[in-house]
């Protein structure tokens, strides 16, 4: 058992991870869109800020001023988090030579960002590649010792910053750098609705996967630890809530399964969600009617449409 694990800052998740993440290693946070990957990653950084660490957010798809604005909706001030805006410029589609931006873009604190999005330079848009970003991380680590880095998202890095032929080699090299410099890093990975694991998932020392799906009553959110090298971990699917305080795991271990109806009232802002893994569709008949206005059920009972082929949801786990 490893002492001094790194706390994720997500209530309940550290219990699933038997105390947290092993320091100095690379982890993936995966999930389909809208599952809370960025929120979880920012919680991880804020936990570092709280314990006086240096933390870095590398923005690859969403402009960082928007990230800051979005996090205010949780009431979080992420001004103390350092940020590298690696979001790409608008492409000009003409023949002007691109510049090496590593000399022009700097790591700053979120609090020092302007309120609006950085504008592409009219005369010479910058080209950002995985090598540029890798070099920046290397330089930055020499100057200040970060203990936590978030790459949001690795999917953008794969799609937009790497030429296809060298995709996997470049990603492996980037992940290798992150573990060589001894920083605990979280990479966000966007999954399609039917998943197919990529190289970054195999390379990461652990994968925390966020899920969402519908049961008979509404949207259900879940979290699993798909893999965790070098540590015991919770193998169960746990329910997740994204509330005004961020991501939290609802029925975290070591407590026993919570029965429906015993949940605390302090997380009641969203629609009611069941505490247990919802039953398969065949059992849906026995579901209790949800709270709220009744819905007239005018449907015939005998003609339920079967699930379409190939739509069975996330398939291949690790």
């Amino acid at each position, binding site marked *: 058992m490893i002492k001094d694990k790194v706390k994720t800052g997500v209530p309940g998740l550290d219990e699933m991870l038997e105390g947290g993440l092993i320091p100095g290693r690379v982890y993936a946070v995966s999930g389909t869109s809208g599952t809370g990957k960025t929120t979880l990653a920012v919680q991880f950084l804020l936990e570092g800020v709280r314990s006086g660490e240096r933390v870095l957010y590398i923005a690859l*798809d969403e402009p960082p001023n*928007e990230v800051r604005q979005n996090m205010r909706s949780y009431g979080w001030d992420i001004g103390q988090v350092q940020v590298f805006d690696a979001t790409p410029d608008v492409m000009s*589609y003409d023949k002007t030579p691109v510049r090496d931006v590593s000399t022009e873009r700097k790591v700053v604190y979120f609090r020092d960002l302007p309120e609006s999005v950085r504008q592409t330079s009219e005369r010479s848009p910058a080209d950002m590649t995985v090598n540029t970003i890798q070099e920046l991380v290397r330089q930055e680590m020499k100057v200040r010792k970060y203990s936590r880095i978030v790459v949001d998202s690795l999917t953008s890095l794969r*799609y937009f910053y790497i030429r296809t032929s060298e995709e996997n080699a470049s990603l492996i090299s980037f992940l290798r750098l992150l573990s060589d410099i001894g920083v605990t890093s979280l990479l966000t990975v*966007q999954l399609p609705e039917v998943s197919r694991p990529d190289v970054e998932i195999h390379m990461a020392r652990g994968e925390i996967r966020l899920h969402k799906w519908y049961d008979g009553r509404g949207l259900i959110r879940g979290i699993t630890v798909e893999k965790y090298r070098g540590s015991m971990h919770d193998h169960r699917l746990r329910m997740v809530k994204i509330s005004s305080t961020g991501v939290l795991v609802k029925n975290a271990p070591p407590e026993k399964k919570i029965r429906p109806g015993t949940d605390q009232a302090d997380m009641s802002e*969203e*629609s009611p969600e069941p505490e247990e893994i919802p039953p398969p569709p065949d059992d849906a008949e026995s579901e209790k009617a949800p709270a709220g206005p009744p819905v007239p059920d*005018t449907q015939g009972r005998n003609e339920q*449409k079967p699930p379409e082929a190939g739509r069975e949801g996330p398939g291949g786990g690790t």
Partner: protein
Amino acid sequence: MKDMLEARISTGVSGIDDMLCGGLISGRPYVVSGTTGSGKTTLGIQFLHQGVKLGERALLVAVDEPPSEIRENVRALGWDVGKIRILDVHPASKAFNKRVSLVEVAAQRSVGALREMGTGARDEAMKQVMPDISIQSLQLMLKQELQETSYSRVVVDSLTSLKKLAENQADNASSIMSLLRFISESGVTALIITDLPDPAELEPELFLCRGEIRLHRKMVSSRLDRWVTIEKLRGSAHDTLPRPMTISEVGLTVDPDRKIPKNSMRVLQAFTQFAR
């Protein structure tokens, strides 16, 4: 705290605004996805119409349908949409031998108010120089248009068609990234219309957009049922339940207080079932 609330933009459908906890966050790109006939274009027009009613400038980028048809369809709804401006990038015919450069395309394709459009699908001159339409050329056309007129709302109908029209599909991902970045930097609130995404594919617009409104249209128990879900909304709480939708002579209506019928819920459940 009041000052934390950003300016919200109404979608023109009050039920959807309620699902979005007030509307879209201003100046960001959003995706509207759904199958054919699910009401995506109607939602787009309602969004633009809402802007016009508030005295804003609204632009429709028409790729799928010629503007004259859109105008007729909308007229059938009885709306006065004459003030919606339209950028016609409809590929009327294929004439690959007569391709013109992207910059020329931008110069030739002009924006007209919806009421100025002729009833013919397209004028003759246009047919003779049928340019290559791509995501890149759309970005260039939009850039030129936004330099002349400051729009606050833009609808692209649809990105799926543009992706299919592109000659080099491999470039689509970075072109889409650039287009969305361009929209961000321009400060316009945009709805990007796409087909229902292939669940096995990772469409770049879906992870780059700041939110996704999905329109569902399904035969459930021999009856057509429609509903709306908010798949993603950055920076805001949102409704996580599917809500029933109707399309009538007043356009889309969504009831944010009702649930969808049980059988429809089961169909949705089958689509997103957690199976591992």
